[in-house]
């Protein structure tokens, strides 16, 4: 709990962060940049976990654990994603999202 700061302010920050991430995910044309946007999304979620844990159930730690797990999963995901991106780059010599349309139809 941060003194004089209400839960609403914190949640506002995380929400804004989330939608910035969403905006990034929707507009970026580069896979790595999209990954970054995803990191923002995840961070917004983590902030929410932490804030709600802290403000509503201060004597518990579940939010913290989940945050840790999320960070771990994010790390794993990023590692995999980047390896896939590198592989893709070898195939197509590009990481532009427009090049990866094989999911079509």
């Amino acid at each position, binding site marked *: 709990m941060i003194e004089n700061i209400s839960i609403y302010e914190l949640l506002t920050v995380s929400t804004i962060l989330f939608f910035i991430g*969403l905006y990034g*995910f*929707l*507009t970026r044309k580069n896979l790595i940049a*999209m990954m970054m946007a995803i990191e923002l999304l995840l961070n917004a979620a983590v902030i929410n976990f932490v804030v709600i844990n802290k403000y509503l159930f201060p004597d518990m730690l579940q939010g913290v654990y989940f945050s840790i797990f999320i960070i771990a999963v994010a790390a794993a995901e990023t590692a995999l994603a980047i390896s896939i991106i590198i592989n893709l780059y070898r195939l197509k010599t590009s990481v532009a*999202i*427009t090049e*990866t*349309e*094989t*999911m*079509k*139809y």
Partner: protein
Amino acid sequence: MDFSYTIFILLIPITTFLLLGFFYNRIKPAVSGWIGVTALTIVAGLSYYTAIKYFFYTPKLEGKYQTLYGIKMNWMNFTDKLHIDMGILLDPISIMMLVVVSTISLMVHIYSRGYMDGDRGYTKFFAFLSLFTFAMMGLVVATNLFQIYIFWELVGVSSFLLIGYYYEKPSAVAAAKKAFIVTRFADLGFLIGILLMGYYGGSYDFGILNNPEGAAIMNWASSSFMGLSVITWALLLMFMGGAGKSAMFPLHIWLPDAMEGPTPVSALIHAATMVVAGVYLVARMFPMFYFVEDGYALHVVAWVGAISSLIAAIIALTQYDIKRVLAFSTMSQIGYMMLALGVSKFDGHEGLGYMASMWHLFTHAMFKALLFLGAGSIIHAIHSNFMQDMGGLRKYMPITHITFLIGALSISGFPLTAGFFSKDEILAAAFEHNKPIYFITLFVAGLTAFYMFRLYFSIFWGKKKEYEHTPHESPWSMKFPLMFLAFMSVAAGYISFSEMVTADRAIFHIHFDFVGAAIAVSVGLSGIALAWFFYKKPTDYPEKISTAFGRFYTWTFHKFYIDELYLFITRTIIFKYISGSFAWFDQNVVDGSMRGIGNKTVSFSKLIKGLQSGKLQDYAVAFAGGAFILVLIVLYVL
């Protein structure tokens, strides 16, 4: 009296058929010929024995011949009441037919041994003959309508197989197909008639249906359709089947073409036995025909018979193919039998027509088989069917000549031949009951004498021809049947039919009417005389007469264009338009609509597959937008 041995009359031919059919390429031709002849000799012997036993040694019931069953067993059940039996029914007409069929079949078997000698399918031929004999015997002894129908169809098939025997000749194939399909079409009527009869009459069994006091006859008026009793309709439909098989106008078109088959086959099937099946059917169902609706159906039979006999006789005048002349003559004579049945009444001497019809059937079988076999002998000798290629053959083929002459005299009703007696009774019956028909009959009798002797004189007399190979008399295997049948063509007239085969099965005596006979004989003789005058020596009278008739002659020569009419109806209308449009409809409309459903699905999927762009962000947009919309709905709408 035990007649159960009669089953062998059926079993022997079918066994022969199976034997020859299965081992057709392992049996030597000579052996198969002998097998056929032996089998038929036994069958004929059994038939004669049965006839003698039945007519002379079986006691009559109240002075009437009774109906006996050689064997009778259940074959199939439709319902509790309706069932099909298989069995052997013995009564005067069936026994008479047994005798006719077995005699002619035996003669044809013997004859074929000579006629078909050296043919590639010799064994097959005898196998088919046996099959036919079996089927015809089965038809004759049928105990019920369905059995008769079953064998009726089998007879049709064996006829198909035998007409198409020279299957490499396209005309023979066409003729076989035509014969089968036309008779099959007629059988359609027969079958519907049987089914109606089964439903309204309550049984298929002849014993039940034909009982004059039975329910089927007594209750004929209980149901009606278009102004006639349904039973009458059934009888008319059944007669349609009979008319098809017996080549009655207008279903006769197959018979002339059927002459494409080997000549012994024409003699057996298309002259003596199978084609009279229609007559036999009407005779078999005679009580029904007579009692239901005061014999309405019987009038139809009479008139169809009369018209057929007239038309056939007229067409026969103009034909040149000797087998076709005989074919039209057959049709004409069967018309006689039909009209005799048609004018007949039921009781005692009133049933003269019935008796005359059966008698004529018997004698006609003999002399027409004789004529056909004689024609076969001639064709065998000079390898042509046409009168123009013949002439003066009497010197080369004395036996054929004499026997043919006897046959021709018999069919023309020359006094003291078999044909004279039976035809005289028909005329008498027609005179008694139906005057217009009597005059038609009399006229036809004259025409018959004329065209038969036109045939006779053109073949055996007339101008002398130079033949490539000198024609020679046929071997004994062919001569013997000719002689036997020639004998029968005279002798059959002296059997007292009125004491054996009558409508009500009671005996009566014929009153011989000299005036009637004299008229008939003089008509016949004048026909012969005219033919003698025209054809004895080559003259130009025939030419002149035919030009004098002009258009009518051409019409007649083309058999009144009935064939062409049928051809138009079937080939053009049914095949081309109806069937063709159905096939088109199926390919394009029905299948097309099914394919159309498929195509529409595909094109719709093409339409919406743009949504699946494969671009991750598009999906994400849709996802996010959709999620927002859902949230909005949940929050503010619900």
